[in-house]
């Protein structure tokens, strides 16, 4: 019985391996969206990233071009062990060719390594740690939307230059928070500012009052929030309760998403300044996308993460078509070779270290009176050109980059 089963499995494996000669393994390109579907990052990524990936597949016209593409998704619950297990299962047993999105830098760094070991493809949209294109860079990974260096460079610079020269950090205690704090601190120190203190809180904290009191006692001019999602909104909401802004201190939300502003309400969020690489109301193309997207995503307008998932999938499919194959390492190499062009980020490139290059925007949240229609939340204060928005190639210590 057992032998029969083993033989059957071997036969299936042989049959499955057969079409490999036809370049697209098993005839289907399978995209796995792996993210937080149920926790504090579920609105800013979550099901929206799945919708975005599906829209990209449709807009690319994959079916008309004879490509069979399937999009699947799973919930990693912000746990690196759960995420790794799903990634392994997807690659080994379910023939997933590309893993997409993956918020939470802790999980993303784990999936980054697994993808490399298995020779598959990984496009990061949510995770922020700049280590993904630095120390941990991989020939199988593209880091699409943004990273902690870009946030630090955009927001940190702007804040220090407008007089915010003493900082206190409230930092989420995991890979992402540490990376963001490190990158912002470097910018602050470089510009002659100083860091008066920092405190690290566990991921998904409800009550920030204690940390806010410490920040208040530090007398720092700027309180840098090196966290994301529900952690950021709770901190800002409770900060207004404790009179942080009235007392003359300001918040620097180092990573704030459109959905966070929506959750806070303009009343509490007004005046916040931070860095984004996409805003739905930038131009006609982004507005058209946002309209279609919101219809399919409970009215929630796209965050930059959703935009990254869409654009990344589009470019991946382009590379697969050009290559006529879906071997992970080769596709990623092809993606780096081809210039990118999509309706959301415009024209851009992908560098040798896996970093996707496009402009970033310094945005300010509007006052309630300035908001004319639903989801009209941002004023664009400055555009950071693509070549300045991300860490220079030679400063990341990425082993893939040959130093001159």
């Amino acid at each position, binding site marked *: 019985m057992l032998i029969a089963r083993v033989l059957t499995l071997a036969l299936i494996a042989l049959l499955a391996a057969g079409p490999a000669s036809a370049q697209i393994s098993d005839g289907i390109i399978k995209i796995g969206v792996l993210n937080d579907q*149920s*926790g*504090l*990052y*579920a*609105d*800013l990524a*979550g099901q929206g990233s799945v919708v975005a990936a599906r829209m990209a597949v449709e807009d690319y016209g994959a079916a008309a071009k004879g490509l069979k593409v399937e999009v699947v998704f799973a919930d990693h619950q912000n746990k690196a062990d759960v995420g790794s297990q799903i990634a392994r299962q997807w690659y080994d047993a379910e023939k997933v060719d590309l893993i997409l999105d993956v918020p939470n830098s802790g999980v993303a760094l784990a999936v980054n390594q697994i993808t490399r070991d298995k020779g598959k493809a990984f496009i990061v949209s949510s995770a922020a740690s700049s280590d993904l294109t630095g120390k941990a860079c991989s020939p199988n990974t593209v880091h699409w939307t943004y990273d902690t260096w870009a946030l630090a460079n955009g927001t940190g610079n702007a804040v220090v230059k407008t007089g915010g020269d003493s900082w206190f950090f409230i930092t989420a*205690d995991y890979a992402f928070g540490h990376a963001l704090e490190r990158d912002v601190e470097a910018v602050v120190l470089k510009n002659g500012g100083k860091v008066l203190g920092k*405190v*690290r*809180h*566990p*991921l*998904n*904290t*409800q*009550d920030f*009052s*204690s*940390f806010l*009191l*410490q920040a*208040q*006692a530090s007398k720092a001019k700027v309180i840098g929030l090196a966290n994301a*999602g*529900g952690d950021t*909104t*709770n901190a800002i*909401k*409770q900060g207004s*309760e*404790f*009179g942080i802004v009235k*007392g003359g201190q300001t918040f620097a939300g180092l990573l704030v998403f459109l*959905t*966070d502003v*929506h*959750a*806070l*309400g303009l*009343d*509490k969020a007004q005046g916040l300044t931070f860095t984004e690489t996409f805003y739905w109301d930038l131009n006609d193309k982004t507005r058209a996308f946002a309209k279609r997207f919101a219809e399919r995503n*409970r009215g*929630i307008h796209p965050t930059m993460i959703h935009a990254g998932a869409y654009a990344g999938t589009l470019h991946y499919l382009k590379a697969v078509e050009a290559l006529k194959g879906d071997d992970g390492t080769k596709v990623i190499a092809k993606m780096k070779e081809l210039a990118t062009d999509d309706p959301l980020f415009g024209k851009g490139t992908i560098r040798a270290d896996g970093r996707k290059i496009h402009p970033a925007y310094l945005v300010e949240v509007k006052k309630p009176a300035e908001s004319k229609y639903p989801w009209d939340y941002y004023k664009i204060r400055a555009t950071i050109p693509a070549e300045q928005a991300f860490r220079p190639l030679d400063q990341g210590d990425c082993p893939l980059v040959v130093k001159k």
Partner: protein
Amino acid sequence: MPTQALFGQLLIGLINGAFYALLSLGLSVIFGLLNIINFAHGAQYMMGAFVAYFCLQWVGLGYWWSLLIAPVVVGLAGILLERTMLKPLYHLDHLYGLLLTFGVALIIQGVFRNAYGSSGLPYGIPAQLSGGHNLGFMFLPNYRAWVVVFSLVVCLATWYVIERTKLGSYLRAATENPALVQAFGINVPRMITLTYGFGVGLAALAGVLAAPIYQVNPLMGADLIIVVFAVVVIGGLGSIMGSIVTGFTLGVVEGFTKVFYPEASSS
């Protein structure tokens, strides 16, 4: 660490302890009198906050009305749950009630998350309680002061009703020996149903209190329920005063942890 900052943390601890106390009080009442380990407590707390949000958005009723309406509405939902599902489980092992309420909690949270997303909905502090006072060693928001006072009053009133009044003595007697109490002409099943409704109402009340501080979020209860269970167990399962005292104590301990070793401050 300057003493001034320590006072601040002590006060913050008391404020958070107020939530723990109020939530664990409801749990304790339900366990003490019904022998049900109510794992849906976190979800019911969350529903309380949502009812407050709905009151404001749909009907235009503010915070003060919500304090009254939310416990009643959610309490009634609790009574429905007790009548239809919990009742058949009384003669079975604790485990069955635990599993049932845990499942119910997951379903409720899933439904709310599906409808309202995970990043929460905004809910403001009532105008009468906005602002705060500078106490010298810290800035105390008026709303937080209100939370401490209000929940202390509710906790002590509940303790008084159950431990010191005739109604309370019926309740306690009914858990000791339901058959005998029924023989005296008291409708024990109805009393038990109402007690469950009351416990659930306490959770909803805590939810309304929490709405202006935290986001109104489908997962707000799931995050808190573990801490609250720890409080109930430390305070002695079913002991009402134990829960109140432990709730406040744990809040203070947590507050100090956030200063001395913040990474460990989460359950």
